[in-house]
């Protein structure tokens, strides 16, 4: 009994550097952000006075009534939605083809995955070059120039500088979504491929002998089996999209009328560019809660299964 007790103490001692730092860096700092979000630290003077004048949820209320933040929420919603759909569609399609081990498949697989090794900052730099529209109609550049040279002028448009929107979807986001899909669809492919390789081939063979079409095999067998993997991929991708700060920062910034703005960019500007510390903290906490809504049910579920 005494030995057991001593063992526990040693275990805790080994863990203690991690426990202490994470207690401060995660839990302490989140609490601090919550506190600042409820103070009136939206001017440098108030911040310097360290005034403890609590305003309750006022910062949150003004945030949600502000048009920039509303735009940010719509942008996040549509960005996440199309980003996930795009990555899943492309990733699953490629994994199904590659699972048949075509000649040269290994080469293609590695090719589709390499963007995962690159920084969002690099991705943003290159895709900004591609999608920067130039001055239409006379001085197109990037992809618009390519369209002109191919005689496809009617495909030219403002890309990430466009201020058009449909049902709250700022079409400028399309350019950013393509860049993000370019970076992450290989990830979905790898997840699906890993799952497909574990499926018993006899199962598929049996279905084929029973006369099932390829589409039926996909919808009735493969997709249901791969559901947990697909769900994990969705969670990861949603998580990535909420944190796409570096991509937007390097590629477009907030854009005209905030068409490509997201909460993470607004948070950065509020906190580090315009001394609105309380607004910045409130945005940060909203982001945390959005991630929480997404992750907690997923985690509870996977812990139960374990």
């Amino acid at each position, binding site marked *: 009994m005494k030995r057991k007790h001593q063992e526990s103490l040693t275990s805790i001692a080994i863990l203690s550097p991690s426990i202490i730092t*994470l207690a401060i860096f995660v839990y302490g700092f989140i609490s601090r952000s919550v506190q*600042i979000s409820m103070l009136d630290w939206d001017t440098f003077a108030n911040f310097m006075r360290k005034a403890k004048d609590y305003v309750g949820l006022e910062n949150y209320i003004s945030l949600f009534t502000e048009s920039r933040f509303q735009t940010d929420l719509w942008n996040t919603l549509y960005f996440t939605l199309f980003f996930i759909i795009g990555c899943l569609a492309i990733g699953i399609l490629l994994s199904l083809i590659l699972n048949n*081990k075509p000649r040269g498949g290994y080469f293609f697989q590695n*090719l589709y*995955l390499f963007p995962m090794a690159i*920084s969002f900052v690099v991705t943003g730099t290159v895709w900004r070059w591609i999608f920067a529209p130039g001055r239409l109609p006379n001085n197109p550049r990037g992809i618009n*120039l390519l369209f002109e040279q191919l005689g496809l002028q009617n495909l030219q448009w403002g890309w990430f500088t466009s201020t058009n929107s449909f049902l709250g979807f700022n079409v400028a986001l399309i350019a950013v979504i393509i860049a993000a899909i370019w970076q992450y669809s290989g990830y979905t492919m*790898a997840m699906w491929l890993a799952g497909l390789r574990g499926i018993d081939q006899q199962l598929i063979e049996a279905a084929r002998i029973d006369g099932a079409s390829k589409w039926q095999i996909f919808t009735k067998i493969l997709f249901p089996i791969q559901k947990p993997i697909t769900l994990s991929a969705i969670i990861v991708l949603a998580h990535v999209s909420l944190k796409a700060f570096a991509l937007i920062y390097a590629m477009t910034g907030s854009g005209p009328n905030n068409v490509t703005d997201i909460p993470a960019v607004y948070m950065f500007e509020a906190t580090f560019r315009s001394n609105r510390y309380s607004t910045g903290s409130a945005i940060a906490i909203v*982001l945390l809660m959005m991630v929480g809504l997404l992750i907690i049910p997923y985690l509870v579920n996977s812990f139960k299964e374990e």
Partner: protein
Amino acid sequence: MDDKMTTQEKITRYAVLIVFAIFFLIPMYVLISTSLKSFSEVSINTMWQLPSSISIEGFKEAFAKLAPNVLNSFYLVIPATLFSAILGSLNGYVLSHWKFKGSDTLFALILFGMFIPYQSILFPLVQFMQTIGLYGSIPGLILVHVVYGLPITTLMFRNYYQDVPDALTEAAKVDGANIFSIYRHIFFPISIPSFVVVFIWQFTNIWNEFLFAVTLTDTQSQPITVALTNLAGSQVVEWNVQMSGAIITALPTLLVYIIFGRYFIKGMLAGSVKG
């Protein structure tokens, strides 16, 4: 399986694979062809063409500007990767084979740190780093990456060690080995593959990271990712220099991917929740 396919099906499949290969390679084409142009050739009308003659002007200028930042990134990434891997390995070892009352809850509390958006800790973190005098320095950034890397490294090692049978630890205990000697003689030696996966994962992530880098450093200590975005800020956009800079930024992690692809994919499948 290939033999059961009709020729038409085969052609369709390769067409799809090739179309996507082009999509994935366009940015690479842009990067390489633009980076090898001279400034006079980066004019708008020829932007999609290959350089008429190869010029390393862009690389020279990008390297002159970015060399200190490349060094900063290495100074940052190597120690941060090492420390977070070693600590993660110890944590994973304890949390899988020396469980105590509440250790599972503790593990969950540690894991939570990898799911948070870092915006939610960012401003207090900056203030804290200023208070302890590490703001704007590379050691400060190392500390931050080690701490926020702990959840994922702990998870990866714990999952790896969980497959080691308890009987092994018990037998070693009977022979008089203690928690440290069991780690040194049994667990550490068998976890080399796991270390490789974690090293590659942490190296890539920390090298590519931007948010902490841009908020916690000054001009002296900026890693390469921040310096690359600053290149864009100048008056005339010298695209050849920027693309050269982007290649310099991407090259170390791309090389890691090319050389250690298999381990990279393992790490990605295990730890990509961190994003």
